[in-house]
């Protein structure tokens, strides 16, 4: 499964992205897995809603953080591809 900008990423079955009040931290909970996203990954994952394409997510983030789109595109794509390879993100 290789993501391109038309792909619509969503969390896989049994995968939850939530804020943990005890640690005051965002976590991705999956079957026998637990991922601790860093600050940049958190902003990306907040855009994953199962409707917005990868290209749309990059556009949103580029506008919000006033960042060069090409740089963001590489980072966002790589992060979501990594989680897709691990089964936490599906397209």
């Amino acid at each position, binding site marked *: *499964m290789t993501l391109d900008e038309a792909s619509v990423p969503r969390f*896989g*079955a*049994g*995968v*939850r992205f*939530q804020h*943990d009040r*005890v*640690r005051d931290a965002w*976590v*991705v*909970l*999956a*079957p*026998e*897995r*637990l*991922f*601790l*996203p*860093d600050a*940049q*990954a958190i902003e*990306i994952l907040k855009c994953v809603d199962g409707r917005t394409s990868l290209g749309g997510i990059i556009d949103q983030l580029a506008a919000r953080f006033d960042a060069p789109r090409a740089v963001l595109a590489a*980072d*966002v794509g*790589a*992060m979501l591809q*990594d*989680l*897709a*390879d*691990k*089964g936490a993100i599906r397209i």
Partner: protein
Amino acid sequence: MSNADAPLGLIAELTHRCPLQCPYCSNPLELARSAAELPTEEWLRVFEEAAALGVLQLHLTGGEPTARRDIVALVRRASELRLYTNLITSGVLIDQAMLDALAGAGLEHIQLSFQDLDPANADRIGGYAGGHAKKLELAERVTRAGLALTANFVVHRQNLGRVPEMIRLAEALGAGRVEIAHVQYYGWGLVNRPALLPTRAQLDEATAAVDAARESFKGRLAIDYVVPDYYATRPKACMGGWGRRMLNIAPTGKVMPCHAAEILPGFTFPSVREASLSDIWYHSDAFTRFRGTDWMPEPCQSCDRREIDWGGCRCQAFALTGDASRTDPACALAPDHQVMLEAVRESEAAPADLVYRRIGAGTGLAKPPGSGAASQSAMPQEADGVGP
């Protein structure tokens, strides 16, 4: 030592009752009777304490957790507390009504155990006639209900040649994850070790099959592999380290760093009936004694892997050397490493007879009833960092 991080996972062994009799069951040889089990309201309170303590994932297991009549109520409360709820089951007691109720109560994930790919051999190993067919049927109903499914295959000398087909079956059943879990040799597994331990060649073939499948199934099926310690050169980080990530509660309410710890002498494992989970996690002798690295003997103490494998497994050190504080014999640097090599030699000539798990059957050979077992999962949770 109170500088520990909060626990990530709670393994709740709701009962030791189980319709299967797998000869490698992770339960202790001394099984708890149903009258000694914690009642519903105590489990509910324990789940509340766990969530407040920082537990994120709840693993409901047994025995067979669905043998508890209150299983749906327990799942519902856990879900309300925002605990990620995982049911580790043999599946044979789950009809459509129960599955619908569990899904409606907020269950996230089902880990379904398989004893083999071959139905006759699977039913023989589990000691439960017709079990395999029920599991296949349940797997399809689970994915149809939209629940995440893991197929857990427990592997050993008597089924190890079928690993590639096991992985293909897992995908065909709609599982998002498959676990190829070698028997871990504690309790019932240790009793049956001579009949179950694979040869080096069998192990290498299975490992190569898993490596190849990980590449070809990437992104479609997550594949976890639990290896047997007997051919290792370094030990596993058992439970991610003693008292570092996980709590295990036995059916009677005893709290332990892992499910096998009950065998360790010189420990008093506190009960949820006597102390708070927080107090037990941060302050009890049971959780602090082997936490971190201060307790370690040489060669662990000066080893650069001491915070990778955390000294391996305390229960294995005890089971094989009689002393829980020794270096895990799985490590090639351990002074007791030769006991692993001797066990391999012993099993090479051993017959395939099995001692089945049942109350009061801890010794002597027992025949399977009618033809009839448990899940083997030694996976501590990973906490992976994710970032671009």
